[in-house]
């Protein structure tokens, strides 16, 4: 490692500015929570009910995270490292559930198995839509991993299981925990699935508190509890990652490894893959088809097309802006790790753990006071998306920049390029697939977002999700089905892109 140079001032200022933007909603939350004094805060936090809710939220998040880790890592290993028949198709299929909004998956399940309501229903639905957060980064890490290590292990007579445990797993650990963190925080912040499954968690209570008492204080206090949980989890993950640092000297050879023969395990592996696809994709798809056939009220094509256009435009814009803002933070944390990038990254993860309504109300509060002209205009809506989903992009940027040896930049500079020029010509180009992946992830997540969009969208503007919400509110499921299907189809495009190999040489 060359001696660490000081971070460029411009980069630091940019990252700090992004940090301020992301921390603002947390500040608003603290303000709302303490509005009626500390006594109320203490009373709310120490209520037996609150502790029970924390337990339920943590229980669900932990279960979803554990199941996502197992499914995500197994799926990625099957399509990259084994001779599973049809693995080119499976690689896309395993990623696709990410395109499903949790509420669409939950409707499908509750319609099919009403008895699932409760913890198990929430667990099944959340796991089926969250495991791709683990699957995708592990997929990328396995493709990047140097096969030589595994070959050495095999040549020393280790069996496939021991090779997997001793070598492969070590190579994907960082990617897997990064993904697990996103899956866990998603389970903490999700409202759609838990409310349809009637499983009470902190987030569900926050929404219900707004709806039942029109009182923002308890909701804000519970929001602060969520933020604290998120920060503890993020800090734990970061500490663990630092202990697990891996440095690669060179890129190794990027050649295909001889796949592991599944042999007698082929049939069980295929059955398992099919079962997973059936649970995560089959049930919601079958339900959507059933809805499309139910009743006669059909959406107007014009409205569907215009909502689809709006959704695409907003999602693309949000993806570009979010990645642009994630760049300084991600680059700083990869190249010049320190307190500032760590703090901004943690705040971004905390934003991801917050319910959409909480972030949206904070944006309402700030924008109407600071930039009243922009309130309920596209920029403020995009800002809310940034707060909610910056963590998705920061992770990708950090990982892809970190995988580029810093020495390459130095070579380019010694050949007469400016710092910025060298960065653009070398690091950015090498990291661009990962950065693109971050953009795709933000893009598809924004397409599914509802609560913040509902509160902050410009007047008269409808996205697919807001139309879907309006129609289900009027109980016209048949008219809502085309919108649900359109969200899934649109979000499936960036999702499929994410599953394909990033580079071909």
């Amino acid at each position: 490692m060359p001696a660490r140079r000081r971070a460029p001032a411009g980069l630091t200022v940019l990252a700090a500015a992004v940090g301020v933007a992301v921390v603002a909603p947390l500040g608003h939350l603290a303000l709302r929570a303490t509005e009626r004094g500390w006594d109320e805060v203490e009373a709310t936090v120490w209520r037996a009910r609150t502790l029970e809710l924390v337990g339920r939220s943590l229980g669900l998040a932990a279960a979803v995270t554990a199941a996502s880790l197992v499914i995500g890592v197994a799926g990625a290993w099957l399509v990259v490292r084994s001779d599973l028949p049809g693995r080119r198709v499976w690689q896309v299929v395993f990623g696709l559930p990410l395109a499903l909004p949790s509420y669409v998956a939950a409707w499908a399940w509750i319609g099919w198995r009403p008895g699932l309501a409760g913890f198990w229903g929430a667990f099944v639905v959340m796991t089926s839509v969250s495991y791709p957060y683990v699957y995708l980064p592990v997929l990328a890490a396995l493709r990047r991993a140097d096969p030589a290590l595994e070959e050495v292990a095999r040549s020393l007579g280790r069996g496939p299981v021991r090779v997997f445990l001793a070598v492969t797993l070590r190579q994907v650990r960082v990617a897997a925990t990064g993904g697990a963190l996103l899956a866990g925080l998603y389970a903490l912040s999700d409202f759609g699935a838990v409310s349809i499954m009637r499983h009470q968690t902190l987030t569900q209570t926050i929404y219900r508190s707004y709806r039942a008492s029109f009182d923002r204080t308890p909701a804000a206090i519970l929001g602060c509890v969520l933020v604290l949980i998120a920060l503890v989890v993020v800090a734990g993950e970061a500490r663990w990652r630092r202990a697990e640092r891996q440095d690669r000297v060179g890129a190794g050879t990027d050649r295909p490894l001889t796949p592991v023969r599944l042999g007698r395990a082929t049939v069980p592996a295929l059955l398992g893959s099919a079962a997973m696809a059936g649970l995560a994709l089959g049930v919601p798809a079958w339900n959507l088809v059933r809805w499309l056939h139910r009743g006669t009220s059909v959406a107007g094509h014009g409205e569907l097309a215009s909502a689809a256009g709006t959704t695409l435009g907003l999602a693309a814009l949000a993806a570009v802006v979010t990645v642009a803002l994630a760049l300084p933070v991600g680059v700083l944390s990869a190249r010049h790790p320190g307190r500032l990038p760590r703090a901004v990254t943690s705040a971004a993860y905390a934003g991801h753990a917050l319910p959409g309504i909480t972030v949206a109300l904070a944006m309402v509060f700030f924008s109407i006071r600071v930039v009243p002209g922009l309130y309920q205009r596209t920029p403020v809506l995009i800002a809310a998306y940034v707060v909610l989903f910056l963590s998705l992009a920061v992770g990708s940027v950090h990982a892809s920049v970190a995988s580029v040896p810093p020495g390459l930049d130095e070579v380019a500079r010694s050949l007469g390029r400016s710092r910025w020029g060298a960065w653009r010509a070398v690091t950015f180009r090498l990291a661009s697939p990962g950065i693109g992946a971050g953009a795709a992830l933000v893009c598809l997540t924004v397409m599914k977002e509802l609560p913040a969009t509902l509160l902050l969208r410009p007047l008269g503007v409808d996205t697919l999700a807001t139309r879907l919400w309006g129609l289900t509110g009027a109980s016209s499921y048949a008219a809502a089905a085309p919108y649900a299907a359109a969200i899934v189809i649109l979000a499936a495009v960036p999702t499929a892109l994410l599953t394909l190999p990033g580079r071909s040489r």
Partner: protein
Amino acid sequence: MPTRRWRAASAVLTLLVLLAPACGGDDGSASGSGPVPSSVGDGTDRELEGTTITVYSGRDEELVQPLIDRFEADTGITVEVRYGDSAEMAAQILEEGSETPADVFYSQEVGAVGALAKADLMGRLPAEVLERVDERFRPHEGTAWVGVTGRSRVIVYNPDLVDDPPESVLDLTDPQYEGQVAWVPGNASFQSFVTAFRVTRGEDAARQWLEDMQANGVDGDYESNVDVLDAVSNGDIALGLINHYYWARALPEVGGAENMGSRLIFPKGDDPGALVNATAVGVLAGAEDESAAQAFVEYLLSEAGQSYFAEEVFEYPLVEGVDDPEGVPPLEELEGPAIDLTDLDSLEETQSLLSEVGLIS
């Protein structure tokens, strides 16, 4: 090296960003009907032509937008509408404070407007506007809001399956109805009914009734009022607790009451199961154009507005002289618990009770 795929993807993305302002600016609420001439003598004139008001609506676009289109055509006032959930909108207006762009808030229930009135964000309505509706449907104190339409709780039953129809929700705990009744504990109207039960009969009586219903095998697995109505009409279950207008809306589809597989019971006296709740509207304290905002409120209470709700939405008009919806008894005949609708804001206690007895989690 970046591959061609990513180049293509980023080109597409750039194109989309450039296109973003082009799409989505258009108003997605194209309603099928053109301007409808206003009914005679609803007192609207065109002196406010050219002004613009912003309405926050906690009621569904499908129900409200056609009437707003008529209001615009009749008065020349431009109405910008924001649709959302009543309670979340109330939270939004509380965050916006005095800066709120909203001039009018039209809510699905009284509680949300009541919360804004408590925070001094609602303006005042003229007494003559309030006096158009029965005092049941206006605030007992202040003039922050006025009821627009009435929605009655009812018992729906299938005459082929029920020999001895109940007269009150209290009868439903009788063994003869065991396993025969459906309800939707997560539904807001159901929760308002339980709130009325608690407020008028006390916590213990409400809890007792809920537990007795459970002991009697009540079915809570239906997703919505519509599902309960369909199940009762089809004979899947004998009785259900719903709002009256779901049944009334289904009438034209089947061609009249004689073809409906189900009938309604409007309980008598102060039975909480006879609660008549209201949708409510008010003008915000900071409304920029108060007269145009008032005009909108008055339009909802005009003959045109009230007939629209009666004929299209099948809710009860609250203003004298407008015909009640087809197929249901007139509003005068409806009784129900004598409460101030603002007192239904103790929803939180209701939800605690419902989760204690295990009806909602």
